[in-house]
């Protein structure tokens, strides 16, 4: 058990995006029964506060945000909890940024604008990765 099945015991998700519309849109697409609690942050500073307090297993992360950008946030989260499963959801469509996000620890990268199908598939992958062998 333990590290092999992170979401069997707990499924906390932190949604980080400076747009409240996007945060609610992501929340509406979370159908998994394994996600038991959802937290939301509007910038990197709030995200780090919630991350340190609740230690979520899953994170969706915007990159362009006030106060602290998403790439900095990813590095800090991974330093605190390296087994966090993290999906970037960003408008930044260049390959360099996607590669940097993955190098810092992101598991998935979804470019906005996303359709419901895009998001469902990416979230399903993220949850499956978190539940599968580590």
């Amino acid at each position, binding site marked *: 058990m333990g590290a092999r099945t992170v979401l069997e015991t707990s499924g906390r998700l932190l949604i980080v995006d400076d747009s409240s519309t996007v945060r609610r849109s992501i929340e509406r697409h979370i159908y998994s029964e394994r996600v038991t609690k959802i937290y939301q942050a509007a910038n990197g500073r709030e995200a780090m506060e919630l991350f340190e307090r609740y230690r979520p297993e899953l994170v969706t992360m915007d990159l*362009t945000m006030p106060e602290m950008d998403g790439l900095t946030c990813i590095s800090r989260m991974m330093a605190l909890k390296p087994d966090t499963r993290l999906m970037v959801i960003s*408008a930044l469509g*260049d390959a360099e940024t996607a590669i940097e996000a993955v190098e810092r620890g992101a598991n998935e990268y979804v470019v906005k*604008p996303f359709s419901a199908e895009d998001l469902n598939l990416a979230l399903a992958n993220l949850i499956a990765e978190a539940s599968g062998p580590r």
Partner: protein
Amino acid sequence: MSDEEIQVFIDGVVRYFQRTTGEPAEVDPPYLKGEDSVTLDFTGVIGISGRHRGAVYFTSCAEQLTELLHRFGETAIGFADHEDLVGEVANTIAGNARQYFGSEFLISVPVVLCGQPDRISFPLCLKNFVIPFTWRSYRSYLIICLDLQP
């Protein structure tokens, strides 16, 4: 700006509405902005820095933003939701342009302006291109003011 660069933003507009609503926006030919006012109820502004300088503006009427928010599943829609969405659309279209311009095309977080079109002054030192488009009969504009850093 070259035709190819303007096309990057036209593609961004079409893609935004197609992917989020399933219905593409219909884009009319871009033109150089003159004295005419093209600002509507809400305007999202993204500053551009890095290798380029300038700004990307997305301006929309409240009715279009409400319709979009309904499509996203929102029910209780208020002024703050319009502000949030107009900034997010501007951010998304400007951010997508990095696929063409590269990672040195730096975008700011959105600044949102509500009404008061007379107060919005566009950079006079840059050519301002207006991309008019229609989605579900609502007219909106994307305004691009962009140049290479001197």
